């Protein structure tokens, strides 16, 4: 027996007692409740692991994401993108960062230099547990699903863009076609079917790994036991589920 459904039934019971129109509401609520025989939301808790040392900055993930998720084709909009950091050894506070076209076409070749360390950092929605973006939505059009994925309700979003302001990681944008907020869905349509995300699918080095913390068979458990990982901007306490391995402290 899954808990949300039981809670829901208790709630509806209250409705029945309290109001005369509750029967209609009960029907309506039932009709709107997702029922999927194969996929139980309460059995999953999704996140992603990124191993910075494995990213070669090829940009295939960015391209695949744009194709898979119908991301607007303009230099401004990305569900995922890759940044190239050039950290000067003598001035670690001021890294030089670029991300031409979000890294979708790769990066202009760079000569090795003894004075800097260069590495690539893929970015995407952090699918935070205590997400600042879902907190600020005035109408409940963006939310964290019971399986831990932050989604936008395109049919309910009013386009106020408060969530875009509230995201510390720059992961949201206003889709110019729908005038609603859009972001990484962790390929929700794929992961509920047992597939991995488009970005993880095409990543040639396995730098990106989708994980399900509620799946005891997921290799993430062994990985987390043996490796230190960190999240972006931990001081903001967003409960990010985008874990980074081998992340340099200069990255933000």
């Amino acid at each position, binding site marked *: 027996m899954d808990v949300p459904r039981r809670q829901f039934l208790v709630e509806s019971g209250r409705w029945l007692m309290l109001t005369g129109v509750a029967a209609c509401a009960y029907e309506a609520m039932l*009709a709107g409740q997702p029922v999927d025989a194969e996929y139980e939301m309460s059995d999953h808790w999704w996140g992603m692991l990124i191993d910075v040392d494995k990213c070669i900055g090829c940009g295939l993930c960015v391209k695949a994401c744009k194709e898979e998720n119908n991301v607007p084709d303009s230099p401004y909009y990305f569900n995922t993108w890759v940044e190239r950091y050039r950290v000067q050894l003598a001035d670690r506070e001021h890294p030089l960062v670029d991300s031409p076209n979000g890294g979708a076409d790769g990066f202009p070749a760079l000569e090795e230099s003894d004075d800097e360390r260069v590495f690539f950092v893929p970015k995407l929605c952090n699918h935070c547990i205590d997400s600042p973006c879902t907190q600020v939505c005035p109408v409940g059009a963006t939310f964290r699903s019971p399986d831990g994925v932050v989604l936008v309700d395109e049919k309910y979003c009013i386009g106020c863009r408060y969530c875009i302001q509230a995201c510390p990681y720059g992961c949201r944008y206003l889709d110019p076609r729908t005038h609603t907020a859009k972001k990484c869905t962790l390929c929700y349509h794929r992961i509920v079917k047992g597939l991995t995300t488009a970005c993880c699918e095409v990543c*040639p080095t396995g730098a990106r790994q989708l994980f399900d913390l509620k799946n005891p068979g997921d290799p993430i458990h062994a990985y987390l036991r043996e490796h230190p990982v960190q999240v972006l901007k931990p001081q903001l306490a967003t409960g990010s589920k985008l874990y980074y391995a081998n992340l340099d402290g200069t990255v933000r």
Partner: protein
Amino acid sequence: MKRERSDWAHLIRLGGLLVLGLVAFVFIRPLFIPEGFGVYGHYRAGAILDGRDHPLEYAGRADCEMCHSDVVDLQEERQSSHRRLSCEGCHGPLAAHAAAPDDVRPVLPDITPACVTCHEKSAGRPPLVPQVEVRDHSGGEACSSCHVAHTPGMF
């Protein structure tokens, strides 16, 4: 007593109007709340289903392997370094082809740019994949003159 009440009459009417507005709001509001709102949290439960309905573009390697066992067998036999790669990384998204193999025919990718995507030498690329300065390495020749993409060791 009667006089006293009449001195309050306008305020009672004003109060009545405000209460009327409030009551109207309380009763009309539930009619416009979308169905399924609040089942899992402060959002439309149906939005989760909407998210699942998005069409697939990338079929995934497992789908490709179902028909293209010749490539799989070759890669396994030669222990190709590309045997774990996504087919669609180079071939592009082919869920439509996987769903209707005869109706949707994929176009072969342009090989050299596909190789360069990962194998061009550049600072910051970890040595997980062989990297060359393509211009010096090939002298302008297509990669496929010496390499086969599925089993990229030399001929």
